[in-house]
């Protein structure tokens, strides 16, 4: 397919593969954490602003509200499916299964961006409010997964004064603050007001993304190399089929929604993507007994590479089938 080739041969994905190859070959190179975190903040600002500016051009319709609602529902519901699958098909403990499930209900903003590029490259159009959908899907999955974990006996671990801290981490983490904030700023300032910052936030975007994806490749490759031993074959498999299940469920929902092909492709990508920044951090606070080597290896080492290479073309194709 043409989309597959153009996706796989875009500099963004090639740099991701370069990083992954280097890590798997055990190169010691790394992008300093402080620099990568700075780039991540830049990317979220740029995404938010772009979405906000686009939203400022169109009125908010009920259709938009429906897609936002669909996103929230997916984020709530997907962890339940993921949890059940993990408990039945793997030997993961309840708490590890719940923590992993949270990752798959939430989203990866870089996967979203990669999909946006692929959508644009294949001649489709995506709406600005999909950024709002991304933001809204970050959090419900965490709540959902905590409820799953707490029906077990670990309940004590989120008692008392720590609830406030956890709430702030979940509702006011960097991704949400920057994404929602920049969205609002783009909306308020509009096309004209953001013109002066366009060279930075629009012109540089693709290039910065290359640099960031080189680092993501290094992280993913290193995570995979260190972590795959601690995962059973069933767990590894989950990292591949869960995104397809999420996308499939979303495809069904899209059939009932008034949604464009481009937006449907992005909604599927969001559902299929797994968080590797915000949710791991939240899990460390909420479920410290859950093993990062399980959930990070899965979401960053397996699902992320799967989505940005093979997944996205599939979701675009699927969007053509279910939306119009």
């Amino acid at each position, binding site marked *: 397919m043409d989309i597959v080739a153009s996706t796989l041969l875009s500099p963004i994905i090639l740099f991701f593969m370069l990083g992954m190859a280097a890590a798997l070959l055990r190169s010691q190179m790394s992008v*300093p*954490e402080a620099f*990568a975190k700075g780039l991540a903040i830049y990317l979220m600002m740029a995404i938010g602003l772009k979405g906000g500016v686009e939203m400022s051009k169109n009125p908010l319709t009920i259709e938009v509200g429906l897609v936002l609602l669909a996103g929230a529902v997916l984020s709530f519901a997907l962890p339940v499916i993921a949890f059940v699958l993990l408990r039945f098909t793997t030997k993961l403990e309840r708490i590890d299964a719940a923590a992993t499930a949270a990752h798959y209900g939430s989203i990866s903003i870089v996967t979203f961006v990669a999909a946006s590029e692929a959508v644009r490259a294949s001649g489709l159009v995506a709406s600005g409010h999909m950024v709002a959908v991304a933001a809204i899907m970050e959090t419900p999955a965490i709540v959902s997964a905590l409820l799953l974990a707490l029906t077990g006996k670990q309940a004590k671990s989120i008692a008392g004064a720590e609830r406030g801290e956890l709430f702030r981490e979940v509702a006011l983490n960097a991704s949400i603050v920057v994404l929602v904030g920049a969205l609002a700023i783009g909306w308020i300032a509009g096309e004209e007001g953001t013109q002066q910052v366009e060279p930075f936030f629009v012109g540089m975007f693709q290039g910065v993304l290359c640099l960031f994806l080189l680092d993501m490749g290094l*992280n993913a490759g290193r995570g995979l190399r260190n972590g795959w031993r601690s995962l059973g074959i069933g767990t590894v498999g989950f990292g591949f089929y869960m995104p397809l299940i999420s996308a499939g469920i979303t495809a069904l929902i899209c059939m009932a929604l008034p949604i464009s092909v481009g937006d449907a492709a992005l909604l599927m990508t969001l559902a299929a993507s797994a968080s590797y920044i915000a949710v791991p951090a939240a899990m460390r606070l909420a479920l410290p007994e859950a093993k990062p080597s399980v959930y990070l290896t899965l979401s960053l080492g397996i699902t992320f590479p799967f989505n940005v290479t093979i997944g996205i073309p599939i979701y675009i194709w699927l969007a053509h089938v279910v939306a119009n």
Partner: protein
Amino acid sequence: MHTKHRIELIIERMAYKRACRLLEAAGMTGYTVLPALAGFGGGNRWQRDSDISMARDMVVIVSIGDEERVQNAIEQIESLLGSHVGVVNISEVRVLRDERF
């Protein structure tokens, strides 16, 4: 020179504020938090620059205080450590300026 106790608590970065609050509650007059770069424990290695989520980052909290307060702090930390992955050690040290502790 006065004898004090030095707590060294190695704990997840995400949880360090919890530990700090316990130290404050136990009456410790100060502490200092150092970032770690890499580590190994429970069979797993981690490296700061290879994990953008910081979920595996650890920090080292150093706090010096008198025996009683340190004892107090340790009891509280013991319960915190129930769910966290930290390692804690205590040693005796001599300090200048007794009045600061």
